[in-house]
């Protein structure tokens, strides 16, 4: 299968079931809502080292936020229910509560599973906090030096999908970057997904475990490292000199599938030799995204 001359390998991306929350942050201006969202999603590329994965889903116009101010929706994902609550409390407490003029709302109001967030953060108010019920939901008003921080008591939690991915195998780093940027641009603001890595792109895909340090749970994916082509069991076709990976986390498999289709299509351009995907033989993750199945009907 080829798309605009780019070979689509007959393989699949292997992804995991994760817990996901959608956090809607608002502030008086886009400057401050962006400041809060950037901190909220900082150091959250992979559960391997960051305890959670988080990214900006999309910017929200004032007409779409609960309080009519500019907003950003963030998806935050963990491997377990307990972890999700902990990470939400830590991150909202340290990055949104602290940011001038912000308020923080649940973006999954229909989710039946609820995790307590505001009800833990309220204690920062040292007894001066008050609550309000608006539309059947409780919100906490925490007095702060700037004024007042408003945070919803509970956040919805869904079973999401983490680790959807595809690899861009290119003739040069320039071509790989151009394709990756095009793919990220095509997926940005896609509802229900986020790209947790810097700029949405990973240059250091990993394999499970390590050859040398046995305690490591992940190490460099040597089969896709161009510099190791001659000394390892390389998976790289001839002519490939740089590989970049796009990792996609989403609220469900269909959101990840739609984003992969868009991203792969955008990445199929000059200088790209093939599109592949990362998996563990299908033994670890329950979600398998077959590239050719996803791209069915888009063959040029």
């Amino acid at each position, binding site marked *: 299968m080829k798309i605009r001359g780019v070979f689509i390998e007959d393989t699949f991306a292997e992804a995991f079931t994760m817990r996901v929350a959608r956090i809607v942050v608002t502030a*008086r201006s886009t400057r401050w809502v962006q400041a809060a969202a950037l901190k909220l999603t900082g150091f959250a590329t992979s559960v391997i080292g960051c305890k959670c994965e988080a990214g900006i889903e999309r910017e929200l116009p004032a007409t779409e936020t609960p309080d009519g101010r500019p907003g950003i929706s963030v998806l935050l994902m963990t491997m377990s229910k307990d972890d999700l609550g902990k990470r939400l409390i830590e991150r909202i407490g340290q990055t949104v509560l602290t940011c001038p*003029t912000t308020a923080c709302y649940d973006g999954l109001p229909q989710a039946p599973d609820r995790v307590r967030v505001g009800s833990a953060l309220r204690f920062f108010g040292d007894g001066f906090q008050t609550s309000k019920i608006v539309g059947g939901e409780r919100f906490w*008003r925490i007095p702060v030096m700037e004024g*007042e*921080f408003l945070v919803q008591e509970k956040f919805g939690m869904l079973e999401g999908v983490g680790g959807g991915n595809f690899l861009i195998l290119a003739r040069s780093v320039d071509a790989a970057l151009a394709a990756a940027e095009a793919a990220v641009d095509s997926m940005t603001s896609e509802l229900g997904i986020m790209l947790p890595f810097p700029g949405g792109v990973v240059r250091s895909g990993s394999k499970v475990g390590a050859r040398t340090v046995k305690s490591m749970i992940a190490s460099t994916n040597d089969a896709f490292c161009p510099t190791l082509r001659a000394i390892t069991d390389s998976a790289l076709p001839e002519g490939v000199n740089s590989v970049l990976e796009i990792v996609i986390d989403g609220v469900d498999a269909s959101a990840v599938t739609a984003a992969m289709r868009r991203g792969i299509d955008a990445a199929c351009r000059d200088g790209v030799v093939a599109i592949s995907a990362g998996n563990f033989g299908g033994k670890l993750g329950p979600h398998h995204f077959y590239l050719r199945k996803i791209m069915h009907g888009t063959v040029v």
Partner: protein
Amino acid sequence: MSGGLLARLKSPLQQRADFSEVLADPWITLSAGEMAQRAVYLERDGRVLLGDLFELQGEPGGRIRFVGDLENGDRLGAGLKQGEVIVEGSVGSEAGLAMAGGALDITGDAGPRAGAAPLGYKRGMTGGELIVRGSAGAEAGASMRRGLLAIVGSAGDKAGFAMIAGTVIAFGSAGAESGLWSKRGSLIALGAILPPRTYAYACTYEPAFVRLMLTRLGLRYRLPVQQRHLTGLYRRYSGDLAELGKGEILEWVAQ
């Protein structure tokens, strides 16, 4: 989803009528015929049936619409726990008395003590949303414990009197001694208000929860929320300091 029930007043009420039992649970599942059997107590003639006063039609769907002048109708929506009640017109005293849930939406005026506590009881509203699109009489939201009372017109004297918690929003002016003796709760005044002397000024700021509430009221009930109320500043007064002092009056001020 069913459009709910429609109750159309057959002829103007010639004497005061007590509707306090009409919307007792489980009214949302009752058919028009069953609702017609609910009791109404007339000031002179005593017990009659709702069906004697109203033509009832429609299917149960958690919603009922009363059409007609109910200025002589007291305690409509008293103890309401669920469902949506719309009154196309004005109502008498004690509408939504001690209501606990659901929504009571009155397009006209409400008499005294809307959403208040029954006489001799400590707690007024404990939940739900009471919308008065006209003006409300004295002691609106008195002793309310939880819930929301929004008055699009003016509020009479002693609005939010002795509130325990909850929120009263007055789009128009609020009468004398509003907020007096409150323990907690918020009295949000978008019009003129003179806070009691037992309240103390704290600061002028932008409370995010007011934006949240007003935005929702604009979307959910189409209330006439102005942009200046969303973006404006509010003077916060803490009180009643002769009581617990954890309540507040938020007075909108032009920037």
